[in-house]
Every structure is written in C-alpha cells, then in structure tokens.
C-alpha cells in the first residue's frame, strides 16, 4: 500500500522578507507553491497511491483566499478522477469556522471534524486502513487531545493518526503532545503537521513532520516537499520527495585573502551556484580584511546590485540580501566606555525607542519589528554597525 503524507501547504501564501524581485523570478515565486502542490498531486496520480493525507494548514489564514481554494479544489478533483481518497484535517491557520468554504470539495475528500473521529478505508489491494484525526475549530488548541484518540483497532491492517500540533505540555497553544503518548496508542504511522521543518521524530512507529511544501522566507531553507510512504505488509518505508521549485538558502562566505573584485565575484559565484533555483542570503565574513574601496562597493550596495542583475532567464541563484560581518572594532574610546554603555542602556530601552516612533508605531510592519522581545538589543547592534561603518570618519 502506498500513500502520500503532506502538511502545511499554505496555499496562496506570499514570500516574506524580500524587498523586490526581478520580473521573471517574481513570476516564478508567485507560482512556486502552486507548482509544488501540483507536483505532489502528479506524483500521487502517477504512483497510483491508495490515499493522500493532508495534515493541516492547507490555507494561510482562516479567510481562505479564493484562488487558493480553487487550486485545492482543482487538484483534489484530479485525485477524485483517479479514485484516490484524501484524508484532511484543518490546522491553526485554516481552522474550521461556521461560514465555510465557497468552493465545494469533491466526494473523495474526507474532512475530519473538531472531535477526534476514525475513518476506515479498504485499498484496491484489500488492505484495511483506519485513520484517526481532528480539525482545529479555533486558532489555539491548548488541551491534550491525545486522550480522544482510540487505541489501535485490531481488525484493521494499518492504523494512522493525523495530528496538527507541537510537542509540549497542556496549556501550550498547538495541541500539545508527547512522543510517549503517540507511541502508546500503538498506531503504525503518525502523520503530523504544523512544524515547517521536516523531521522524523521516531521510527517505530514512524512519527513524521513532513514540513511545508515550499519555503517562504529565510527560516524555511533547503529542499521542501512531502513524504511518499510504502507499506509492504510488514515494513513501513517513508521516502522524502522534493517538490519545491524555489529553495531558500543562507550562505556564509569568508572573504579573507580576497583582494580584488574579480576574486571576490568568483568566490561568491562558487558559493551560491547550485542547480536548483534559489533565493540566497549571502553573508560575507571578515570584511575588515578587504581593501577599503572593495568594502565601499559592498557597503554602498553596488556589489549586491551587480549580483542581482545577472541573467535569470531559465535558472536563478538570486542573492536577495548581502550582509557583512566584521571583527568588531572599538568604536569608542575605552575611557569613555562607561558613558557609552550607560548611554546605551538609556537609549536602547523598549519604551525609549517607542517614543521615537511617533506615528510609525501604527505601521503594522514596524510594530511587528519592534514588538519582538530582543528588538532593543538588535537595534543596538545595528546602530553599532552603523557607527563602525562610519568610524573611518572619525580617524
């Protein structure tokens, strides 16, 4: 028996953390999630899987973008045409609400309600499968729902549990559970969702986070896709299938001993060129060793601009951000160090900073930034970098 386990599709979700993209790349980016999902369905049909499991967060928000719904419907219809049933739960982003979808899903799709239920299926080859799961009906599920899951049924050949949540304790926001609890149910496979970084938490039975199917920002790097799971009657063999057309990468490159622009460019190219289409955040370390004119090119943004105007027709490894790391120089004199530090304590206070913002406090993007816990330290670091960059002026 074969099935596909995927989660966190986040259909319709945009890419975050980019300020702009060249047109061709932008178009590919807009299509990236769709492409990844379509590839998933292609595999399902080609491999003639017995069923597909979608473990939550199919949509980015509870409003459910219309086109995302249409996309889901169209692709699930393809599965319906191939007589492949779908087991689906909704997660914390796309939880069930009273006024639901405007798009009707085909009959082969079996959605789990807010209470834990078990649905059974008999595959074409006669294997009986039971699937237990539930959908979120609100943003946070703080109780431990595992108690509601039944013990493994004896008369079925294979039992799967679907759970969109996170390891934790009751009171945590996302259906907290422990590995022991999962294992105690005696199921043959746990299809998890919610964590976007894929990982295999256990092997007997397999407890798997497939991760999301397409990275959307700098924290969702490397290959993304879904799991194709094979069960031959005795052993379960999950196999990761990459399906994301655009890969995020964070690359670090030391520029020590690079003395001119050509060597620098060559080194950069070597570091970022890969066969896949990538969006790269490139961090150059030890930039203090560079000749000043070269460093100037970096800090002025000229180097980045050059990197970004390379050809992106068929394939791109696009550097969307260029960061530099230098050995921190003493910006201020040590005899005044105490005053600098005292002043820093005064200036880099959350409330003090907020006072500066004025109307900017109301800007969503900005609020998001400064409401982060370590924002004062972070902005202090940025300011220090700024001073470092300008410390040449002081000499």
């Amino acid at each position: 028996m074969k099935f596909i386990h995927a989660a966190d599709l986040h259909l319709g979700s945009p890419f975050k953390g980019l300020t702009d993209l060249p047109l061709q790349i932008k178009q590919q980016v807009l299509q990236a999630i769709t492409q990844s999902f379509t590839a998933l369905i292609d595999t399902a049909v080609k491999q003639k899987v017995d069923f597909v499991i979608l473990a939550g967060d199919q949509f980015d928000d509870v409003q459910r973008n219309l086109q995302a719904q249409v996309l889901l419907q169209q692709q699930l219809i393809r599965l319906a045409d191939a007589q492949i049933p779908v087991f689906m739960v909704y997660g914390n982003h796309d939880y069930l609400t009273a006024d639901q979808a405007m798009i009707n899903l085909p009959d082969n799709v079996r959605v789990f309600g807010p209470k834990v239920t078990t649905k059974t299926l008999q595959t074409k080859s006669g294997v009986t499968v039971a699937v237990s799961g539930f959908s979120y009906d609100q943003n946070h599920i703080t109780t431990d729902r595992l108690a509601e899951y039944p013990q493994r049924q004896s008369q079925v050949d294979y039992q799967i549990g679907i759970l969109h949540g996170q390891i934790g304790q009751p009171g945590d926001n996302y259906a907290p559970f422990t590995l022991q609890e999962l294992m105690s149910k005696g199921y043959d496979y746990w299809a998890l969702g919610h964590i976007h970084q894929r990982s295999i938490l256990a092997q007997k039975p397999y407890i798997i986070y497939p991760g999301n199917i397409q990275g959307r920002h700098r924290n969702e790097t490397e290959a993304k896709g879904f799991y194709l799971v094979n069960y031959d009657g005795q052993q379960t063999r999950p196999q990761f299938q990459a399906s994301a057309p655009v890969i995020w990468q964070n690359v670090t490159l030391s520029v020590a001993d690079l003395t001119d622009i050509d060597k620098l460019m060559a080194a950069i190219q070597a570091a970022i060129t890969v066969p896949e289409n990538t969006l790269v955040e490139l961090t150059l370390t030890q930039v203090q060793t560079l000749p000043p004119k070269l460093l100037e090119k970096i800090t002025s943004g000229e180097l980045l601009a050059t990197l970004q105007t390379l050809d992106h027709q068929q394939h791109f490894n696009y550097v969307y951000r260029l960061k530099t790391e230098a050995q921190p120089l003493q910006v201020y004199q040590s005899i005044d160090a105490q005053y600098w530090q005292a002043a820093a304590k005064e200036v880099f206070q959350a409330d003090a900073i907020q006072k500066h913002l004025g109307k900017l406090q109301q800007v969503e993007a900005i609020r998001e930034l400064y409401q982060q816990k370590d924002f004062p330290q972070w902005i202090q670091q940025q300011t220090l970098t700024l001073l470092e960059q300008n410390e040449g002026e002081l000499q």
Partner: protein
Amino acid sequence: MRITGVKILGFGCWVDQTLEFQPDYQVIWGNNESGKTTLLHFIRSILFGFATARGHKKYLQYIPHNSSQYGGEVYLTVEQTPWTVRRIKKGKKNEELSVFRGSEPVALAEYQDLIAPMTATLFGQTNFIDRTTLDQVYQLTDDQLLEAIMTVGAVGSKDWLQLAHQFTNNADQMYRPRGKKLVLNQLLQQSGELQTHLTDLAHENQDFQKLAQQVTQIQSQKKQLQKQITQQQHQLDQQQHLLQLWPQYQKWQELQATKYQPEIASADWQHFEKLQQQLQSQQQVQTNLQAQQAQLQLSRAEQTQLQYYQAHATELHQLQATKQQLDFTASQMQQQVKPQQQEVEAQIQTLLQQTDGLQATTQPLSSTELSTYQQLQQKVQEAKTTANAIPGIALPATFSKPSVVIVLSLLVGVLTGGISHNWFLAGVIFLLALGLSWWGLHYVRRQSQVSEQKVAAAITALQQFQTKHHLPQTPDLDILTWQTQAAQMSHYQTRLVQLQEQVQQYQQALDHWRQQTQNQLPDAIAPAELAHYCQRMEKLQQRQEQLQQQQLTDQIADLQQQHKQTQAALIKLLQQYHVTTAEELEQLHRQNLADVQQREQQRVLQQTLKTALPQLQQIDTNTTLENQISALQTTIQTDQKQLAVLNEQQAQWQAEQQHLADDNQFAQVQQEVEFNKAAIQETFTQWLSNQLAALWISTTLNQASSNRYPHMLARAQQFFARLTNQRYRKIEFIKQELAVVNAQKDRFTVRELSRGTATQLFLAFTLAFALEVADLSAMPLLIDDALVDCDQVRRSNIVGLIQELAATTQIIYTCTDIHTANLFAASNVLQLGKDDH
C-alpha cells in the same frame, strides 16, 4: 609620563635629529615650515603608531623625502625610570616597535599597558590641541558652539557631534512624519495603497459567495418560472384541445337535444322482418303456384286438340316412325346420292370442257364407225401431204403479185447490167427472168390449185362424217381419244339416270307419307309439322297430368290461409308500434337505425368529450376559448422571455465567479504587500539606527560631559579667568545652561559672548578636559600654536597657564611668535629653523 627627548631618524622634513625636552614643559618656537607640527606628529607616531594609508587628514604619515629611514625614538621618564620607545618602518608593512626600560627590552604588552587607555586616536583628540581645533569653533553656529562646549567632556566629542548631525541628517533624508517624497514616507504611502487594494480584492471571497447566493436564487427563480411555464403550456394545450373538440361538442349538444322515436325492439324487428319475408315468400310461392297452375292449365282449345290427338295417337306414332325412316333416307340422299350426282355432273362438265365438241348426249362411235372415221382421216392426211410437196404453195402471197415480180426481175436485170455493163444482156436477162418467173408462178399456182382441190374434197368428206356423228368439226381430231371420252360420257349419263331414279323413288315415298299424314292430322296442321304437333300434344298431356298430380289448388288455398295469418301477425306488430303500414314500420326502423347511428355517434362523442365535457360546458362560445388561448400564448411568451433574461443573468454571474476564481491579482498584491513590508522594515531599521546612533552619541556626550563637568568646571573656570585676564571669574552650569559671570557679577550666556571670548571659553574647557584625561593617562599635552588670537595682555596669561598646567602634565608647546617664546624661561625654549634642517 614625561617625554625627555626624541631622536628622529627620518620623519617628514626631519632627518637624523636629536632633541631634548624639559620634563615640565617645553616651548618650541620657529618660523612656519620649521617642522614644529611635524615634530609633534612624530612624537605621536612613535608612541602610538604610524598613520596608515586609511584614516583622515589629521594624522599624516610624513613619509620622509630625504631619508631612507622612517621613524625614530622617543625617550620617556616613567616614574623616574627612563624608557625608550623606538619605532621604525621599513618598506610599507614592516613596522618595528621596540621598547626599553633603561637598556632592558620591554614586552610590547607591557608597553601597551603603560600607555593604555591612550590610543593614537584618543591622543589626537584629547592631548593634541592645534589651531584647527579652535578655528573650527569659529565655523560653528552659536548653538553648535554651545553644544561643542557642553560636550567637550567626551573624547572626540566634536567629531562625534559632527557624526551625530550626519546621522540625524541621514534619518531625516529617509523619513519625516509629514514627509511625502522621502523613502520611508513613500513606502508607507505605498503600504496604505496596497492594503486598500488588498482589502478590495479580499472582498473577492465575499463577492464570490454573494454571487453564489445570487446564482442559487436565480436558479430557484428559474425553476419556479419554468414550472409556471409548464403549467401554462399545459393549460394552453388543454384549451387548444377544447377548441379542437368544439365542433364535436356542438354536435354533441345537438344530439343531446334530439328526441328519439320509440325504438323497435330488436326481437320485434326480427319478427317483423321474418313476417315480411314470410309474406313475400308466401306471396312468391303463391304466385308461383298460381303461375304454375295457369301454366299447366289447358285451354278449351287445347283440350279439344288433345282429345283428337289421343284418338289418333297410334297412327300418328306410326307415321312418325315412317317419317323417321324417310328422314333417314333423305339424309342418305343428302349424304350420298346428291354428292354422287354432283360428282358425276362435275365430271361431265370437266369432260365437256376438255373436249371440244363433246356434248352431253354424245355417244361413242361403234367400232365400224370408228374405223370409217379413221380412214377418212387418213385420206385427208394424204391429200395434205401431197399438197405440201408442191413447192411454192408455201410461198407467201406477196410473191405472187405481179408488181413484185416485175420489180424483182428488174432488180436482177440491173444487177446483171451493172456487173456486165451490157444493157442488152441485162434486158434480156430481165425479160428472161420475168418470163421464167411468170411461168414458174403460174405452174406452181396450178399445181397448188389441184392439190387444194383434193384436200378440200377429203376434208369435206370428213366433215360430213363429223356432222353425222356429231363430231366436232376439227380436221385432225383424235378419234380414239374422242371415243374414250364419248364412252365416258355415256357412262356418266347412265349413272346420272340411276341416281335420278333413286331420288325419284324417295320422292314418291315421301309424297305417300305426306298424303297419309294429312289424313291423320287435323286440318290445320301440315304434315311437316307432325313432329311438332306430336310434341305439343305430348306436352299438353304432361301438363294435364301434372296438374292433377300437384293438386295445386289446394296448395294455393293453404298458402292463402297462411298468408292471411301472416298478415294478421304483421298488423298486430304494426299496431304495437302505432303504425299502420309496414312502410311506416320500416321507416321507423330506418329512423331507428339512423337513431342508432346517431346514438352511437352520441355515445362516441360522449366518450371522446368525457374528460373535457365539464370544461366545455363552462364555455359559451368558441370565441371565448380562442381569446383565452391567445391570452395564454401571450403570457407564455412573456414568461419565456423572462426566463431567457434570467438565464443570461445567471450566465453572467457564473462568468464573474469564474473570473474571480481565475484572478491572480490577490496573490500578486499580497506578494507586493510582503515586498513593501520588508522594504519598510529595512528602511525603518536604517532610519531608526541613524536616529539612535545620533541619540546615543549625544546621550553619551552629555553623560560624559555632565559627569566630568563639575570637576572640569573648576579647572575650566580657572583657565577661563586667566585667559580673560580675570574678566570672567565664574562659570556656572545650571540646568544644562552654561553662563559666565564677570567681576561685576553679571551673568552672560555663551551666546552673549563675543566669538573670541567664546573660543577662549572653549579652550578653557578643552584644556580642563585634557587635564581630566591626563589624570587618567598621564600623557603629555601637545599644543601646536593654538594659543593665538589673544592680545598681548592675555598672551602672558597663557604663559602662566602653561606653567600652571605643567604642574600636573607635561606640556609641549609650539609657537611662531618669538615674543611669546620669550615669555618663558629660556631653558624651556627650543628654537627650530636656523640650525636644525
């Protein structure tokens, strides 16, 4: 620490020079370009490091022009211990630093510890005061000057201030609360626009839902309308059906109205028919019988005849038999005799034709006659033969003519003459010829005449015989044949006679019979009619017999009785139906039949109209019906048009739905929103860090200053008093405000001072701060021609000032003015320029 001397190997314009300094203070004076400034820079370079290619103008490298060496030594006294700091640079990168305490080398780390926290930068900022420091003050605005003064207490405060201003500037370039064209402002503007756009697009979901609702609604509307139309259609069909049935209905109505004649029961009618039939047949039979009777009945005449016949029956029968025989004979006559007669006659005719001269009565010759004829015939023949022997008989007549003879003879004569040319001869010949021929002819003629006579005689004899015996008059008659033929003829004639006799016999017999018959038969009857007569009589007899047999009269009487009975029954039946004659009943019956048809029709119509009847009965005329129908049709049309409109609307809405579903704009705008957000965050970070950098700097400077200020204030006050020649005795620092107080206890804010005085105030603070720093680091103070712009009176104050400063810190002071230099103790004055380069 105090600098006791220097040894310059190569620096700027200095080459291989050694100088000694006084530990308290050292004044160095010289003209411009004498290397004073260079010297100070040298000290700094040796102590803290050569200037690199990086960095700014303040701190120059002073690569020596005339020496291959670069660097030198500085001699220090640290806590009464002599130290040597030697720093040289070979080439571009090899900077060699060696430090000795006395003659012992010192670890560089220890040296660093010694000079810490002083760095080249710090030294430059705090322990190095030159004109530029003060000159720059002149370029500041009043506020900036105040600021400068207020923040003297931090290291490099002026530069920091400049940087802070730059940062603030940068930030202001990026964003201002009411800005429109600045980067962050524009991004924020864009953000608003994108959000609005997104919100509009986000309505898609609602719009889609709304459209779905509308579509459902319209579908139910359509359904209803369709139902309505179907109903109306049904009604229309019904009405049209009624209209169709209308004529039939009218007919039905008519039929309903008719009154029917009483119906003859089928049994009765059958009875009636039977009676009629009976009557008829009875009548028929009766008539037949009566006819028969009539037929058979003999008339009186017939009776008489019959009696007569019966009387003579036997004889008549006999005669009949005879007649039969005769008939038989007649037939025989007919069959045989007659034909034979005909045959013979034909044969006779044939023979007559064949033979000329033969007649019916011709008899064959007897044998003697025959031989006679033959002899005669022979004679003729002989005569002829002789005649023929005579030549010339055959000559044609023409030749006998004389004319011809003459001509011929002439001809001969001519010919001869011609040939012989002897006309005498010719003449002779002619005559001869003539004569010959004439004779000849004559002879011949005679001869022929004779023979002819003989012939004629023979012929005559023959002819006479012929006439006698009735032979034809032909001369060459073949008598034998004639004989045969004659014999034949004779035979035929005999036969003929025989036959005729037969006939005659029959005839006689017939006549006899005739006679007899005539006797027997009644007068009116001819014998030829015997058979007929007998037959007739026989028939009469038969009739009589029949009549007697059949008893016809009784039968007829019976029939008549029956007939009466039948008629009575008939009348009874008729009476039952109140009619008098059978025709009337028949008419009634026809009427009945017609009625049946009608009734049937009525029944059929009733059946046909059954379902529609109640409706039809409600309508008075078909015009009403037609009106209803046309009204319905109009309604249906209107409804169908409405339906089409609804369909169109539904299609439109569904197309809109599809458009919404296909529209990619939301995703695009969402992505733009993210781009915008990231850009805002980046720009904001830049802006904020610039703002905070400026703030950090000014806060630090303020903190440092306000920390050091109180202590510095005392010194600054002192210095300021000295520099202003005791004019201003006090400096007050109250609530961040700086003010000076003169002897008269008048307070002046810094803004109220003249620029020169303000500069001196700044200098006082700078010196005070330098001493603060010096307290920490005990480094000498290098003042490069900085105390200028003082009038003479104040100049001397500077001397006192330096001497005072020197108490705690070594001062190395350069100047160009000899007068100033002379104010100092000569031992502390070094002159550059004349002997050193």
